[in-house]
């Protein structure tokens, strides 16, 4: 376990350090001088066969960026919590998801949790997923909304976790008797090594990572199913749904904002609007087939996001449109940027956006633009 112990950090790392110090958690706690080093420590320890963990937020995660690519390219099953917070400038310590969404293309699996029980359960699942497909997993949850709130949770039984999660086997065993160089330079071409094996080049290694992501979809869904069987809690595999069977208006988002959309759905249902929610639990690998199924009957889709790809729209919205393209699902998709830098998001605001989307279904055409929820300037 490696962590940079001050801003931006959540109580998570502090409490874990107490567990280690008190002997409750059998682990080595490495205090480092920054998040880049925290990930480097995790990379090194994971390479030699240790199960590792770290946690960070916002600018700390950005500082780690280079090593995130390195961890994924080395195919190390590192598990990290990202406590989602806004990034500077201007300085903010409050919640949004710009930090982890900005790390979308680093080759990490990203799972977004909607409540505290899901966080603890997902971390256990994350190790099983990571150690099967050899891809690092980022378990993301909203800062303050979840990180600094309390709720009673079931702590899974130690022995039960042990049965669910077999010991970590590194993909390569390092030993002084059989020395290897890890991550030596790979060339644009494939090359025969001195033992006569035609070795993959850089591009083939990168292809293998993408291929592993394709496999990961099944592994994530299977892991969730196995977890539900063992522990009796099902958080959804790649996505979760709420009242989507007959929903005409489907709201979507990642993390706690999707849980807010559940409350908004109840409000809209009370008014006779057939609303529902598709929670995107796994952002990478993107649940492309699941979203096609989940949105197949939608008349209008609302994507609420706590991040934006500047100069375009929310990254989730773009990915969603790409997944639905050519599938016959042609419902208008309304993109809302919401809750940046901790701006409170209320279910009634989401419900109001839903009502507007329904009104627009009656004859009016919708301009393809991203709206900023509850944001007024000037």
């Amino acid at each position, binding site marked *: 376990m490696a962590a940079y112990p001050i801003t931006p950090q959540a109580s998570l790392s502090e409490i874990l350090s107490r567990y280690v110090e008190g002997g409750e958690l059998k682990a080595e706690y490495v205090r480092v001088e920054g998040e880049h080093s925290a990930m480097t420590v995790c990379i090194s320890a994971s390479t030699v066969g240790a199960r590792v963990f770290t946690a960070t937020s916002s600018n700390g995660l950005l500082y780690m960026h280079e090593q995130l690519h390195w961890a994924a*390219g080395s195919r190390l099953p590192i598990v990290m919590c990202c406590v989602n917070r806004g990034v500077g400038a201007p300085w903010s310590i409050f919640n949004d998801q710009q930090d982890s969404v900005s790390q979308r293309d680093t080759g990490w699996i990203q799972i977004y949790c909607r409540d505290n029980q899901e966080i603890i359960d997902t971390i256990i699942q994350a190790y099983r997923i990571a150690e099967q497909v050899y891809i690092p997993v980022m378990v993301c949850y909203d800062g303050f909304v979840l990180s600094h709130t309390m709720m009673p949770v079931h702590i899974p039984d130690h022995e039960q976790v042990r049965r669910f999660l077999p010991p970590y086997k590194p993909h*390569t065993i390092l030993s002084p008797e059989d020395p*290897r*160089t890890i991550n030596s330079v790979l060339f644009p071409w494939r*090359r025969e090594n*001195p033992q006569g094996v035609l070795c993959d080049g850089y591009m083939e*290694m990168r292809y293998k990572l993408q291929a592993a992501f394709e496999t990961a979809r099944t592994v994530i869904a299977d892991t969730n199913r196995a977890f539900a069987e063992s522990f009796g809690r099902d958080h959804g595999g790649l996505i979760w749904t709420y009242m989507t069977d007959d929903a005409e208006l489907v709201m979507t988002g990642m993390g706690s904002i999707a849980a807010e959309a559940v409350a908004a759905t109840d409000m809209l249902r009370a008014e006779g609007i057939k609303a529902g929610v598709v929670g995107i639990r796994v952002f990478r690998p993107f649940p492309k087939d699941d979203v096609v199924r989940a949105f197949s009957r939608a008349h209008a889709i609302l994507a609420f996001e706590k991040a934006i790809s500047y100069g375009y729209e929310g990254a989730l919205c773009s990915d969603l449109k790409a997944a639905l393209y050519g599938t016959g699902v042609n419902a208008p998709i309304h993109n809302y940027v919401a809750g940046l830098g901790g701006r409170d998001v209320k279910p009634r605001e989401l419900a109001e956006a839903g009502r507007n989307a329904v009104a627009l279904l009656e004859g009016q055409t919708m301009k393809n633009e991203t709206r900023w929820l509850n944001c007024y300037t000037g």
Partner: protein
Amino acid sequence: MEAKDTNISALCTPAAGEGGRTGDWRDVRPVIDQTKCIPATKGKAACFLCWLYCPEGVVTMTIPVQIDMDYCKGCGICAEECPPNAIRMVREEDADE
């Protein structure tokens, strides 16, 4: 050629040529003047600073000192370190071989 690369991350074992025939990279090559080289003139193990400083490990600690041109990149560190200036860096196109 038939064996498949089953590694999922880039790995290699220590062996000559793991980085390819890096001698191809060379613009200038070290040429040893055996009449100045200390081990050669004294006929016994002496400085061998060329062997010690070579970052590629292509210099032998032998009399005479030999340099593996398949992998020498021509960096010139050996020439820089040689106390009697017995090593000259010669442009490839001007070299005899």
